[in-house]
């Protein structure tokens, strides 16, 4: 490998880790606080991608401007799903919530396929092809912008969770539901808001991905798996853990993807299984604090 190649691989990993951090943060927040592994997370990402695609297609809205809209729409959807559906059976055995979100994923993906067809879409803007040249390393502007948005969202989420009253209520609920209830936290509402925030982050990630990769209704599944792997690598402890997991995973994906593309899934999952076998409880604890 030449120096330029290594530089490009490192840059690609950095650019990928931004979006993956947003994907994984939403997933980790929901998992850490409500103990739900949300298999519909990828489906939320796809909805976000179609929101941006639709707004760009019909009203020529700049894809970056549509991010808040896609986040708001998914927050509302996530809030409703948790409130009306998942809260109803959340204390049932694990398989129940797991299957419920699996059912949701199947439902959402196929409704999208029904309305938008399985055609591959992409959001093309005037600046889509342009790239910054850092010596021999290419940095597409879109990916750079996506990294900027990702950093902004991560900072906003971290500030929200640590500084605001609601954010602290969310963390308290994640640490101890009963104690939080005793201090007057409305757990059902906090769960719904948490799930809504997780969905909103998925929406933002979907909007970003729609500019970066061509997509169809099946885009999401792979991202749910990636989010899970990142959470296992980094742990659910706090925002920094998830960021570290996203960075580590991105390096593996970019390196494996450039060397052995046919076995990328087999290798990443092989690593995951090995890792889990050595540390069955995952790398870090459970609470999102």
């Amino acid at each position, binding site marked *: 490998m030449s120096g330029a190649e290594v530089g490009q691989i490192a840059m690609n990993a950095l650019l990928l880790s931004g979006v993956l951090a947003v994907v994984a943060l939403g997933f980790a927040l929901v998992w850490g606080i409500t103990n739900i592994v949300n298999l519909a997370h990828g489906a939320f990402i796809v909805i976000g991608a179609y929101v941006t695609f639709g707004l760009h297609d019909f009203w020529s809205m700049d894809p970056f401007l549509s991010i808040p809209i896609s986040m708001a729409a998914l927050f509302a959807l996530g809030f409703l799903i948790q409130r009306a*559906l998942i809260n109803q059976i959340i204390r049932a055995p694990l398989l129940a919530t797991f299957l*419920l979100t699996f059912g949701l994923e199947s*439902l959402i993906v*196929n409704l999208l396929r029904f309305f938008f067809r399985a055609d591959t879409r992409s959001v093309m803007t005037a600046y889509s092809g342009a790239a910054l040249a850092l010596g021999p390393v290419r940095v597409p502007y879109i990916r750079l912008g996506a990294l900027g948005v990702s950093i902004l969202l991560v900072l906003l989420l971290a500030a929200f969770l640590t500084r605001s009253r609601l954010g602290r209520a969310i963390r308290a609920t994640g640490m101890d539901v009963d104690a939080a209830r005793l201090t007057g936290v409305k757990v059902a509402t906090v769960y719904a808001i948490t799930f809504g925030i997780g969905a909103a982050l998925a929406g933002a990630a979907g909007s970003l991905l729609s500019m970066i990769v061509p997509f169809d209704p099946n885009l999401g599944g792979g991202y749910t798996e990636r989010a899970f792997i990142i959470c296992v690598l980094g742990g659910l402890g706090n925002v920094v853990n998830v960021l570290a997991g996203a960075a580590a995973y991105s390096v593996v994906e970019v390196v494996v993807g450039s060397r052995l593309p*046919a*076995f990328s899934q087999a290798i990443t*999952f092989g690593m*995951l299984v090995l890792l889990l076998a050595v540390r069955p409880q995952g790398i870090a604890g459970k609470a999102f604090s």
Partner: protein
Amino acid sequence: MARAVLLAVVLAALLLVPSLVSPYTLLTYTSALCLALMAQGWNLIGGYTGYAAFGNVAFVGIGAYTTGLLMLSRWHVPFVPALFAAALVSALLATVIGIPVLRLKGHYFAIATLGVAEAFREIASAWDDLTNGATGIDLPVRSDSRFFYYVALALVVGGIVITARLERSKLGYGWVAIREDQDAARMLGIDTTVFKVAAFALSAAFAACAGGIIAYQDIHVAPDDFFKIEYTLQMIIACIIGGTGTVWGPPVGAAVYQLLSTYVWSHFLELHPTVLGVLIILFVVFLPRGLMDLFRRMAAVARGGRFGSDVFLANVRASRLE
């Protein structure tokens, strides 16, 4: 006594099916039986042992490839021995995979198995020398749909007998103990690893049989047709519909699923997976114990008990967040 008569009538009806329906319709019955087989397998690990295995499709695929490759090999192994060999290979692979993976709990186990299935799909697509890559392999043609139906029926009946025997054995009680409280089970002296690996290996053998039958009937095995997550989903849904951790749940669930699925296919082709999604959600929320539980309650009503909408809301009442 009434039960024995009912069973005899059902079995007689099932034996007569091939003479009553067209060879094409018979394919639907055979698919239902293959699904029942997969569900019976999943029931052992997912139902009795309580481990949410999300990758059993790996063993459907391995069963299909092993059966096909043995029949095509220079020994030209006949179908039935090839099928048994496939079950054995699957069970052995499940043992090797299960020893590390079954140490995981809850979500971690579920996703790890999901990953194992994905990995096998990639291996089957990429290992050109053995599996002929994404193109797949072609099996000898046998256009005798009755043959496949009777093989599948025999295996499902065998599966019912095996499950019923296991349920009342040391192994079965051990599985249920692990499901209810693994630490307590270990304290009782149950070697949880051995028990869990046994459940996983048996479930793989069932899945492999289903895969082998489907492969020979479809005469073509390609990675994407066999290592597809829909199979995993279908076997879990069949178990949930019928009732997990029961002898009759998986076959009943598979029959009901196939009925619904065929109906939806023929009337709303486009919305087929959407309807499946809704079905999963409805069953998980309102009938998580499945139809067998509903039947039991209805039988209790016939003997003078009370039957209310409570049956459907019991789960929500017990597990909602206040």
